[in-house]
Every structure is written in C-alpha cells, then in structure tokens.
C-alpha cells in the first residue's frame, strides 16, 4: 500500500542544508499496524508528513496504492489528504469555534457532500468513537481524550484506507492513552491500515511492527516480537 524508495528530505536554513531524512526505503502493506519510534529529532514527524502528503520529499519515490505521489499537483495532494488518508495529530488540531459534530463534518465539506449526508455520516463516526453524547460540545468543553477521539472521528469520516497518527497519545495521560490506542487497534482490526508515531514502547507494543528511526535512517524494522493484544485489554 505504501512504498517509499530512497526518500530524502533536506531542510534549508539559509546557507546550511539540514538533512532530516537520508534515504528511507519502506513498504507497508494493506491492513498493517505499524509504529515508528526513534529519538526526538530523528525525523519521525517529517516522515509522517511526507507519507500524509502534507509535505513533499526532496528526492525519492513515494507510491500510495500504486499511485506515484511525487507526480501529483498540490490540488491532487489535497484530495488524497481528503479521502485516502486520515491524519491524527498530537495536539488534536480541532477548530475551536466548531463543535465536535462540525469538526468531524469538515473533511466532508471539502469532499462535496451535502449537509444531510455530512450530518448523518459524522454522527455515525462519533458514535463509533464513543462520543454519541458529546456531539454539540466544542473542543474546549471536551477532555483531552475526548478531543483526540473527535480528531480520530474526523480522520475516519471520509472512509480513508490509511490512518496516520503522529504521537496521538503524546498529550494524554496513561489511562486515556490506552483508550485511544484501543480505539486505533480496533479500527485496524476492522481493516484500516494504521501507522503511528510514538515515544513509548508500551504504546508501540500494541502494534504488529515497530520501525526504529535514527538520524534520518531506518535502523530496524522489527516484526519478530509477539504482540499479545488480547491479554492486556482484558
């Protein structure tokens, strides 16, 4: 599903160029559940942003569902972000003036759905993430965990095949972190391809594959350890 070939990302700060990703090769299949780990500054977010079509690589190839992303225009990238990818951020990134339902409906506005379709579908997803009784709350009237679930609902609303989450539990306490991870795990079990960035091994262990990033290179792509998803959540 995701195919990265020698992805390089170099930032330019005046005269000096800062290499952040220095040749990433990575293949992620449909339905996989993957965690990216690595020290701060190792380039995890940069990699996620490239996979999420928020940024373009400096060089290298990126195919999503067989489509060559590097050849697409900005508008086409926007469309891919709109309905092929759901992105979840550490800081939730909800619009403060909109309530939960309106936030979830937003991607559907840009997809061109009618108001009724949007309302119906957004309610459906909010029920899925367990927020049926918080639909008209604004982000400021929700807890961190609830806000992140609204953000996940928003990511899901246009039926993406790929869910990207950059430190989705980074701003949450341990208990709500696990609730959010349980939700993502459930979604993966139901078929969505999930890729998360995390600092915590405890969180990463819930996935099936851990990628270690160091200084812009993949150090280790580990699928050998055994995830016992069932036991912990019981």
């Amino acid at each position, binding site marked *: 599903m995701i195919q990265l070939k020698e992805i390089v990302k170099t930032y330019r700060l005046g005269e000096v160029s800062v290499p952040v990703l220095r040749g990433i090769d990575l293949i992620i299949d449909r339905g996989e559940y993957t965690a990216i780990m690595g020290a701060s500054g190792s380039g995890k977010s940069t990699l996620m*942003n490239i996979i*999420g079509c*928020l*940024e373009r690589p400096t060089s290298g190839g990126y195919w999503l569902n067989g489509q060559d992303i590097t050849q697409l225009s*900005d*508008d086409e990238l*926007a*469309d891919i*972000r*709109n*309905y*092929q990818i759901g*992105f979840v*951020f550490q800081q939730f*990134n*909800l*619009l403060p*003036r909109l309530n939960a339902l309106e936030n979830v409906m*937003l*991607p559907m*506005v*840009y*997809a*061109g*759905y009618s*108001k009724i*379709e949007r309302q119906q*579908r957004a309610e*459906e997803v909010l*029920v*899925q993430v*367990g927020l049926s009784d918080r639909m008209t709350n604004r982000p400021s009237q929700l807890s961190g965990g609830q806000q992140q679930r609204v953000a996940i609902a*928003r990511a899901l609303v*246009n*039926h993406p095949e790929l869910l990207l989450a950059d430190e989705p539990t980074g701003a949450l306490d341990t208990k709500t972190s696990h*609730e959010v991870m*349980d*939700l993502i795990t*459930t*979604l993966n079990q*139901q*078929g969505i391809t999930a890729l998360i960035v995390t600092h915590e091994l405890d969180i990463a262990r819930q996935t099936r594959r851990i990628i270690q990033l160091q200084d812009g290179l993949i150090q280790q792509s580990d699928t050998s350890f055994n995830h016992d998803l069932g036991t912990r*959540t*019981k």
Partner: protein
Amino acid sequence: MKLFNQTSKRLSTQPLYTNRRRRKLNMGETIGLAWSSLLANKLRSILTMLGIIIGIAAVIAMVTIGRGAQAQTERQLKSLGSNLLFVQSGVALTGSPASQGAGSATTLTWEDAQAIASTCTSVSATAPVLNVRAQVVRSELNTNTFIVGTTPEFVQVRDFLPLTGRFFNQADVEQVARVAVLGQTVVGNLGLTADNAVGQTIRIQGEEFFIIGTMEYKGSSQFRDQDDQVMIPITTIASRIVGVNSLQGISVNNISVSAKSPEEMDAAQFQITNLLRLRHQIVPPRSDDFIVRNQADLVSASNAVSRIFTALLGGSAAISLVVGGIGIMNIMFVSVSERTREIGIRRAIGARSSDILWQFLIESIVLSLSGGVLGIILGVTTSSLINLALGWQIGVALDSILISLSVCLGIGIFFGAYPARKAARLTPIAALRSD
C-alpha cells in the same frame, strides 16, 4: 473494550459512501462561514466597516443632494417663464456668461426691445426692464425693494400673472401713469394683504403711486426674490424715479425676450445679436456692448455651484471608501495571521488552496458589502432628513443603491485579494506549525 464492542459491527460494514470526486464548494455555505467568522469579532468588524459605511452614506447623500439641487434649479428657471432669453447691457468677457460687466453699463434702450419684438421672427414678445433699488413707504411702514419699470408684455414674457387687481396696460405706459403692481413680499412688508392692497397708495422716492394690482406668488430664485419687487410703467420710472434718458430714448438694464418655442431659442438669440449689432453699429474690432443669455447658460451657471458641491462630496466619499478598503485589507491580514493554524488544519484535511482563497475573499466581500448596506441605510436616512429640511421631494434613486453595492463588491474583491492570496499560498505544514 466494552465501549467499542457495540460499534464494532457497524465499523466492519461496507462503507455507505465511496470516495468520490470532489464538487465545488457550496457558495451559500462559504458565505455562512464568512458571516460566522465576522460575528465572532463583532466590534472589530463594525470598526473595519466604518470607512465603507461613511463613504457609501456620502455617495447616497451626494447623489440625492445633487439631484435635488438640480431639480430645484430647473424649477426656479421654469418659474422665470418659458423660452426666456435675457439681453443685458455690458461687455462680454471672453467665455464668461456671468461676467461682471453685464448690466453695469446701460447701452440698451426701450427702442431696442421694440425693434427686437417687431423684427426678430423667432421672438414672440419682449419686455424691457429698467430697475432700481428704492425705499417704498406706506404711512409709517416702509420697505427697501426693487422698482421694476417695464411694459405690459412683462406678464407674458415672464409668465407672471396678477393675483388681484390688474397689471398696467399700454394706456398706463403712454400716459406715464403713477400706478404700481406689488409683489406679495412687498404687500406683506407694507402691512397689506393681496385683497386690500388694490386702491391704496404708496410713495416711491416721494412720488405717490396708486396700487392697481398684486402679483401671484412666485417664490425666490437664486437670481432674485421675484415676490420682492414693485412693477411700474417704464415711462414712469424713466421720468420720475431714475431719469436716465439717453439720446436713443429710454435706457434699460435688460430686455427679457420670449422665443416663439424652445426650438427657436437659438434662432432668436442669433437674430437678436445681429439686430443689436446693426442698431448699435458694432463692427470689428469693436466688441458687443450687450450679452444675450438663454436659460441653458443660467442653468449651467447655477449647476456649476451644485457640481462643485457634488464633487466635494464625491471626493470625500472616494477617500473614505479607499481608506475603508485599506482598513478591510489590514483586518484581513490580521485575520489570516490569526487563523494560520486553522488554515493549516483545513489544508491538512483536504482543503485546496483555492478553497482557502475563496474563504477569505468571500469574508472580505461580506465585510465590505455589510458596510455598504449599513452605509446605504445611513445615507438614505441622511438624505431623507435633508429632503425634509429643504422641503425637496427627491427620492433616493435605486441606481445609486445598486452602484454603491457594486462599488462595495469591487472594494471587497480588490482589497481582499492580496490577504486571501497570502492565506492560500501558505503550505499546509508551515500553517500547521504556527501558533
């Protein structure tokens, strides 16, 4: 897990909505979005609109006042009599119909007036006017007014009829009769009424005059209060009041001429000019010692005043609108930088840069148009008050409202374009990183 068990069935079902090609954004919703974001900053929005409000109000008031003044002028000129031409003594300064010399020297005579009436085929009648300011006394009351010496044709030429009694006739002129016809202002100033004035006597410069009639109300024009004058036969004023008999006969200040029809005004003017040049023996290089003016000249002279006024109002309206537009641009820049993160979020979930462009452009247009609507309300109110104060009956023209709205639309687009473009050009990731 309990939380999700109940919903897991739903999640596994086939999606109800398949990925589809995007449609254009709904304009109504974009406008609604702009509204809500302006309402979120009510005071700021109102203050931003102020320049537009004042500018548009000035435009509406300007148009109303301009039209009112013009209608007023036309009404006044019409009250002078139809097809009216004025021949005045004096030397015409080049290109200036309102030259200072006009009427100061007395080169015209009563005979000129008679000659014009009998010779010029496009002229139906002439009325010579010899006037002077004088004190009019009746018992202990007195008033300073214009004494107009003229002939009976005055009634026809000026379209000015007696209200009570009668105007003097040809016999009165021939007999140098001491008869007077009073304008209503004079009647009032002398403590009389239109009904009891006839038959009374007044004194003009010590000479006793018999009131034989009063004139209808005419109202004031910017030329003269036509109700504040006393008409006496031209022979009487020449021999008893002024006494400027030139060699050619009785000198007059001006001659009012009525052309046979509006179409013959130009012909009449031409004929009069030629006739008077002949009579006054004017050959080059001598220049004319008279001026023939038609109503169009008078209208354009008086319109010049209202045009200056209109231009002043228009200028301040334009400045106000430009300042208002810059205010909108400024606040849109503020809005863009305040909402950079919002822009980033919208881009991240699939908004194209054109969606962002429209969002901010529409917001600027809504801001400007709202200012325009408030400005129209203010302008219409002001215009109504002006109408009320001046007793005009000038409605606010629909076209000035439509023009105002299109100007506002233009301002919204022009001054909103740059901030909106700035917003649209932000890259998703740069916008998301801002706080």
